[in-house]
């Protein structure tokens, strides 16, 4: 049986938040570095990517949030059979309050009715929890922080879309994704990463699109057709010339992740979740006693 020691969980999750807020995953940092090599030396695109890389380094060194918008906190837990999630929820909330007080998180949860920010980021809808039951004895805990600038340019399309010439097929899906990238320009802090859900409903579409950011940048869809679409959209997107921060350049997106959910006959949705270059994702595996087994990514 799992013996949950709340203080131990709290410490681990605090550390998960701290690492997520202050450092980029290695694959994302590598993608930025590679992109800089492709841009014209001394040009604005090259400069922007250089500033980003320097910022990542500084954030790591100073143990400071790498972007001031510490985003929506989405936790993804996979727990063993029979696991009681209440203690984990409690420990996570406490860890968030601690991380806010320590300056790793901005007061980022605001009451839309009164306009007042919540002191600790623990509020209705914050954090967002997703629980799944796994077969293993370990707890898989992952966190994604996604900022508002990139959330604002995310989009959902209802097919067919006459204006885009998008029918209910993969060519239609391709058109929607490219349109979303064009509409976003630099507003979502390009270069971006796209999580796409084909199908589902209004709610599950966005949720599933966002969860694609749990994949590593080079992790292709296991579905061959979708994997091909990912590659082709990425190729086209980088020919648009939007570039870093929309100032022009060769790199507009770093990655495209597409997945599909079943749909009802009347609805064909394409949901595009846009993630800024600051893709903050971390994860850890915890053993049955609550001890840290290893870091993921």
């Amino acid at each position, binding site marked *: 049986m799992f013996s949950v020691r709340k203080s131990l969980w709290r410490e681990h999750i605090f550390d998960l938040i701290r690492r997520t807020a202050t450092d980029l995953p290695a694959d994302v940092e590598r993608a930025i570095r590679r992109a800089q090599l492709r841009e014209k030396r001394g040009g604005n695109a090259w400069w922007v990517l250089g500033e980003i890389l320097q*910022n990542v380094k500084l954030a790591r060194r100073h143990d*400071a949030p*790498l*972007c001031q918008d510490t985003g929506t906190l989405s936790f993804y837990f996979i727990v063993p059979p029979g696991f009681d999630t209440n203690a984990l929820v409690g420990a996570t909330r406490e860890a968030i309050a601690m991380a806010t007080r320590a300056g790793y998180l901005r007061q980022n949860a605001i009451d839309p009715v009164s306009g007042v920010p919540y002191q600790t980021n623990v509020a209705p809808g914050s954090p967002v929890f997703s629980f799944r039951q796994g077969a293993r004895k370990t707890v898989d805990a992952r966190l994604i922080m996604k900022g508002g600038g990139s959330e604002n340019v995310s989009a959902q399309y209802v097919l067919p879309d006459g204006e885009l010439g998008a029918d209910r097929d993969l060519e239609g899906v391709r058109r929607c994704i490219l349109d979303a990238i064009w509409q976003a320009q630099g*507003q979502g802090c390009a270069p971006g990463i796209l999580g796409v859900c084909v199908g589902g409903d209004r709610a599950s579409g966005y949720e599933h699109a966002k969860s694609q950011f749990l994949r590593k940048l080079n992790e292709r869809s296991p579905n061959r057709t979708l994997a091909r679409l990912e590659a082709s959209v990425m190729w086209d997107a980088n020919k648009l*010339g939007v570039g870093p921060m*929309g100032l022009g350049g060769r790199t507009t997106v770093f990655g495209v992740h597409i997945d599909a959910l079943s749909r009802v006959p009347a609805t064909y949705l394409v949901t595009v979740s846009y993630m800024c270059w600051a893709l903050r994702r971390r994860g850890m595996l915890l053993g049955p006693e609550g001890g840290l087994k290893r870091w993921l990514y």
Partner: protein
Amino acid sequence: MSKTLEYPFTAAKVRSLKLGHRVCVSGLIFTGRDKFHRYLFQGGKSPVNLADGAIFHAGPVMARKHGKWVVLSAGPTTSARMDSYMPRLIEQHKIRVIIGKGGMSDATRQACAKHGCVYLEAVGGAAVTVAQCVKDVCGVHLLAEFGEAEAVWALTVKGLRAVVAIDAMGRSLQKRVRQSSKRMLAKMLK
């Protein structure tokens, strides 16, 4: 490679900046975002003198260390959200420099040309780099009313790097990119 721009940001200094060039901003700047812009737009009195000044679209992460405010992280926020307020504020408050991200609308562009103002694109998300440029937090206004992220922070910065994305002639870098990428997109969707 880049030009320095020092406070006070006079019309002459601002007009000498060229589209697409990089600048290093030094001196006094004020943060202000959604709530502050709306407040001014609705006729609220500005707690600071914005004439020949710079407004920085940002919501910083602040902390108090040894009784003093320090900036932990302060990148630009999306300026488009301030678009509906900006032209009037440029005119009424003689703002000369806007620092933000993502570019601004045609109306703001035209106000820049008319009243002599520039829009500087700072790198979105590069919040620690900006925080490093802050040498002093001189004061804070409307903190109780707006909260930490939306308050007006008076900052002394040194060497804050940005690109001139709208110049004082009203030309916009982002607009050009938007148009050229639109043509490219049309070709792809043929």
